[in-house]
């Protein structure tokens, strides 16, 4: 490029090389030195200036960099004699992109292209700019220009992709696809196609228009040979035939696929779908969320006559029999599972073949029961059986298990599968009594211990045999807790998993269970440690963060929470920044289907519900962290444009479609989504196998939460303003200072009241009714914080509103203020009185207490600070004169004194309560924990597995367990685990204590300020 258009802005390459080298090695100061020298010689070179801007930006001076870059751009535009080279443009582009001014970069390329209309390289640069801006229409126009210029296939495909993107990700109508089809057809007629991906796109365009016949014709013609992987081509053909309704031909194709890949389960399902003329599998593809595909095969009850049905089923059976006969590899599961699927379809059709379904499962158990995936493989077939049949099946499995002889590792696998399928079949845990459940835990633990020597020679990085048993024991122990509310079971579950992790410290399944158990007990810092040990990073954060984030949001571990949020948002934002460049990479490498995929994926992440929550919560965390200092809080609010941005978000969120990308399958049974935790409610005997979660319901709930929370920054801002004008307003003769603030706050209060299920007037009535306990029934744990927040903001509004007739309460202090103070006091004391300093007491109450102090109480603290500040105009401002002003200030000051004193007492009570926890000697805490497990050796209740565990550890010998297992077993101590639980919980309470203390100190200093008034 440089040679074609002269040198880069007239500068020889050797002069700029050292600059790029210095930039690449991040020696920016050095780079700047070189640039300065260069600029001395070439003061008007846009390229030299662009380089300078680049260096300055990397040095962290965005404003200066921006102005230099603009300067470079102006020079580039102004001087017609200067040549436009791609090097200058791309350097400027980098700077503008880093400064979030993609439009300016695009402008430069547009200008260059208009000056040199025939230059392909500049046009590609411009195309790339549009890719970055997701301007699909302009992309298309530019690509077409390039295609017209040189006639290359790739530019045509760039245009076609851009059209497809308009339809799939933009507002383009389907009929645009016809245009794309026309372009391709014309090109194929004159030039054919060279790239397999071009063909894939061509087919997808036809398929989307339901032109299956045309697509098939192309695929079976000469162009079809472009697809080198035979199975891929067959899959495409089969799908097209099926969608065209030609089931017979499609079945033949899928039969071929099965011959090539006898283990292709999806291939078999498609084959069967075609034989039975059932297109559900293809319809589902379009309807289902690709990230959460259904666990079970969807199928229609066949419309075929019985005769037809029997014939087709017999064809399928013959095919499967042939696959079975041809199978030499004894690890191929598909044909065996296929026989059960055929029986299932027969069952669904109304054939009374329950025994055949059961026999199929039994046969499968005999062959593959030792595999870890046995239960999940057969899960869908069990669904068709009645409760009685399930019991029957279990008996059959039990019988057959006794007859199977297998080497020890396989025998262990079979036993585990048996336990798992037993849980699956008897799903509803209300059937067996607690004692039976305990017995099965003991049995499993025994099995684990007995078989541990099998893993003696395994590498420490490999999983041990029977690893799953411990997770299964944990699941049952938690059920027992739910049933009995005896926390001993939870402690026991923790012990079992910690023991497992002492043997193998990498088992992620144990870690996930543990982090939920510790969170439930309030030992959040330990939960967080286990979470960290999972090394959740990059895209895994999007699917796994839900295990930790929700409980951290209501915890006092602000530093850890801040890191979680920061890392996650950085990952997402980085992806959004770089995604377009990677899309362009796919264009360049002619992998067109990936172009579409990348853009859709970016869209998916941009609509992520978790991303939305994280953004809102990050701002709320900042507000919580700075609430003790009104100036700092105002700084934070300024950074959020006084909450306006979030207000817009609140309005928009309802119409946005959100994506849910969490991997919910990895969650423990008792909390199938972060909004649900069965353990907090009464025992209901819900089958603990995760149900399909209804995304639509989650979406509606989450949207409301976000809508409500997004109001907070603005309401806090307005409350501060409202409180500050209140004092001044008292001084005004006609008192109408800031109608805007007051009316906006009123509007938001109306919205907030709506979230509480009331109109503003009604909600005010409720609040006014609090003073005589009239309204207490309205408040529950789930809306307590919202009511308190509402009252805080209502109080702030009442300070500046003339509209709100606020009966005088205590002197000058409005009555609503009294109500707010007593509400804060009442609910705080209620919480601390109901939660004794027992280590295993439920954490959810403490979470509410923490929220109460860090949210409504903190916001109220800001209102007080704002009022006081207005009583003390800063020295710089001109003091208002006149006795009216002083009188008003003094009244207000006295009025809030009561409140400050009141809240100080509340905080003192909380701190005293925390001290109670801290004061308990460690020995006593430990004793309590072990008491929960041993209960004086009583045989009932928790502790049975734990006692076996202790016995097992004490009897370990090196020869039996080898060098890898024996030492950690011997050094593992239950006391250490108990200590960790205690310290984990106390650490959280300590952090909470520090927050309370800082708030108490703030109130103390406010008291002193008032005294000076």
């Amino acid at each position: 490029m440089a040679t074609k258009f002269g040198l880069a802005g007239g500068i020889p390459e050797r002069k700029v090389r050292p600059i790029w080298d210095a930039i690449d090695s991040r020696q920016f100061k050095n780079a700047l030195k070189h640039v300065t020298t260069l600029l001395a010689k070439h003061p008007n070179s846009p390229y030299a200036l662009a380089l300078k801007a680049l260096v300055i930006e990397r040095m962290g001076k965005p404003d200066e960099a921006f102005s230099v870059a603009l300067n470079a751009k102006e020079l580039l535009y102004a001087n017609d004699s200067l040549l436009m080279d791609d090097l200058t443009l791309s350097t400027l582009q980098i700077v503008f992109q880093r400064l979030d001014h993609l439009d300016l970069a695009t402008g430069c390329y547009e200008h260059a292209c208009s000056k040199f209309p025939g230059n392909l390289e500049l046009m590609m640069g411009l195309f790339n700019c549009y890719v970055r801006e997701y301007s699909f229409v302009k992309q298309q126009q530019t690509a077409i220009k390039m295609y017209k210029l040189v006639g290359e296939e790739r530019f045509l495909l760039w245009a076609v992709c851009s059209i497809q993107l308009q339809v799939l990700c933009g507002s383009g109508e389907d009929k645009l696809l016809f245009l794309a089809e026309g372009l391709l057809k014309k090109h194929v007629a004159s030039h054919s196609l060279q790239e397999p991906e071009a063909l894939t796109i061509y087919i997808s365009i036809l398929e989307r228009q339901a032109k299956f016949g045309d697509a098939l014709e192309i695929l079976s013609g000469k162009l079809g040979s472009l697809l080198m992987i035979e199975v891929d081509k067959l899959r495409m053909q089969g799908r097209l035939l099926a969608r065209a309704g030609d089931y017979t031909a499609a079945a033949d194709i899928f039969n071929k696929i099965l011959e090539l890949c006898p283990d292709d389960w999806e291939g078999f399902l498609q084959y069967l779908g075609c034989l039975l003329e059932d297109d559900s599998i293809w319809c589902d593809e379009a309807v289902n969320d690709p990230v959460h595909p259904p666990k079970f095969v969807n199928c229609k009850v066949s419309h075929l006559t019985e005769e037809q049905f029997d014939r087709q089923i017999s064809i399928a059976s013959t095919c499967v029999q042939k696959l079975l006969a041809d199978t030499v590899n004894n690890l191929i599961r598909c044909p065996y599972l296929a026989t059960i699927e055929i029986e299932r379809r027969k069952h669904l059709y109304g054939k009374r073949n329950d025994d055949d379904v059961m026999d199929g499962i039994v046969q499968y158990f005999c062959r593959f029961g030792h595999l870890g995936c046995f239960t999940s493989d057969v899960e869908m077939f069990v669904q068709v059986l009645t409760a009685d049949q399930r019991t029957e099946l279990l008996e059959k499995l039990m019988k057959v298990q006794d007859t199977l002889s297998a080497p020890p590792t396989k025998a262990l696998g079979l036993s585990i599968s048996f336990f798992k399928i037993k849980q699956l079949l008897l799903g509803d845990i209300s059937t067996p009594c607690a004692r039976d459940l305990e017995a099965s835990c003991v049995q499993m633990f025994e099995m684990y211990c007995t078989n541990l020597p099998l893993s003696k020679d395994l590498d420490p990085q490999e999983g041990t045999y029977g690893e799953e048993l411990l997770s299964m024991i944990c699941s049952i122990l938690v059920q027992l807790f739910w049933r009995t509310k005896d926390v001993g079971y939870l402690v026991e579950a923790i012990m079992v998993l910690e023991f497992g992790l002492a043997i193998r410290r990498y088992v992620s399944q144990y870690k996930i269970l543990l982090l939920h158990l510790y969170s439930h007990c309030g030992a959040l810092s330990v939960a967080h440690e286990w979470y960290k040990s999972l090394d959740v990073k990059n895209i895994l954060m999007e699917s796994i963060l839900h295990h930790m984030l929700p409980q951290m949001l209501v915890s006092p571990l602000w530093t850890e929470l801040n890191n979680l949020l920061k890392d996650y948002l950085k990952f997402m934002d980085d992806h959004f920044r770089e995604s377009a460049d990677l899309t362009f990479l796919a264009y360049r490498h002619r992998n067109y289907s990936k172009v579409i995929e990348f853009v859709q994926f970016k869209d998916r992440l941009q609509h992520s519900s978790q991303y939305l929550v994280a953004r809102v919560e990050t701002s709320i965390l900042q507000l919580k962290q700075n609430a003790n200092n009104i100036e700092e809080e105002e700084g934070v609010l300024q950074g959020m444009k006084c909450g306006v941005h979030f207000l817009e978000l609140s309005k928009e969120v309802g119409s946005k479609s959100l994506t849910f990308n969490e991997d919910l399958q990895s969650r423990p049974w008792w909390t199938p989504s972060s909004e649900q935790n069965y353990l907090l409610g009464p025992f209901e005997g819900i089958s603990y196998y995760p149900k399909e979660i209804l995304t639509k319901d989650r979406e509606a709930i989450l949207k409301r939460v976000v809508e409500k929370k997004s109001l907070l920054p603005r309401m806090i801002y307005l409350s501060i303003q409202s409180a500050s004008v209140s004092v001044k307003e008292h001084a005004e003769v006609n008192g109408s200072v800031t109608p805007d603030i007051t009316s906006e706050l009123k509007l938001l209060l109306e919205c907030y009241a709506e979230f509480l299920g009331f109109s503003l007037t009604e909600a005010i009535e409720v609040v006014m009714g609090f003073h005589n306990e009239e309204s207490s029934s309205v408040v529950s744990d789930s809306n307590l914080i919202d009511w308190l927040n509402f009252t805080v903001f209502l109080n702030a509004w009442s300070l500046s509103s003339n509209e709100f007739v606020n009966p005088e309460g205590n002197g000058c202090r409005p009555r609503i203020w009294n109500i707010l103070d007593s509400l804060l006091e009442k609910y705080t004391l209620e919480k601390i009185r109901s939660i004794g300093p027992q280590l295993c007491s439920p954490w959810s109450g403490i979470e509410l207490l923490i929220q109460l102090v860090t949210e409504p109480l903190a916001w109220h603290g800001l209102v007080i600070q704002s009022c006081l500040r207005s009583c003390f105009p800063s020295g710089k401002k001109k003091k208002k004169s006149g006795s009216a002003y002083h009188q008003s200030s003094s009244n207000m000051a006295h009025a809030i004194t009561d409140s400050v004193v009141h809240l100080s007492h509340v905080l003192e009570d909380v701190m005293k309560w925390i001290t109670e926890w801290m004061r308990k000697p460690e020995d006593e805490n430990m004793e309590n924990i072990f008491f929960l497990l041993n209960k004086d050796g009583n045989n009932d209740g928790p502790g049975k597995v734990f006692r076996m565990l202790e016995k097992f550890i004490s009897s370990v010998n090196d020869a039996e367990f080898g060098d890898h297992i024996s030492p950690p077993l011997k050094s593992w101590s239950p006391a250490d685990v108990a200590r960790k639980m205690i310290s984990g919980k106390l650490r959280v309470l300590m952090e909470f204590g520090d927050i309370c203390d800082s708030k108490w100190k703030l109130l103390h200093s406010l008291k002193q300020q008032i005294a000076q008034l």
Partner: protein
Amino acid sequence: MTTIRRFCCNDLLRYASVNLDHLTETFNMSFYMTYLARWPDYFHVAEGPGNQIMGYIMGKVEGQGESWHGHVTAVTVAPEYRRQQLAKKLMNLLEDISDNIDKAYFVDLFVRASNAPAIKMYDKLGYVIYRRVLRYYSGEEDGLDMRKALSRDVEKKSIIPLKRPVTPDELEYD
């Protein structure tokens, strides 16, 4: 019971059960997307019944002349689906593509010198230790460069082991 198909972006949101394994690295997005954008035929995923992700393989093809080769960047299987020779199946697929479509001379991979189970598996699949790369992993642990010759390398020249270890900066490709 394995449907093997091309890996796609959405699979990144579904592979947690595989990637929570401590030996499976979760790369940054540009790493995955570069592989998808450049070598989509070398990035495959295995799906089981109930649409469960069983494991995946990612790799690339690069080099010049007789160094033109397929490279396995990562191959991993979820714990539930281990001991079923799935990794073998995925490796064979990548070898087939390198051999038949891209006509490469050999396939290679790097493995931690301490990862005995993996080394044993690659050995069973016909890979030999071509050379040791000193401090390849984060400047600490040595890596082993293991290779398997493909049909184009008739004389199996590509897999004659080097006598001395090399340092990471001596490597031709990352």
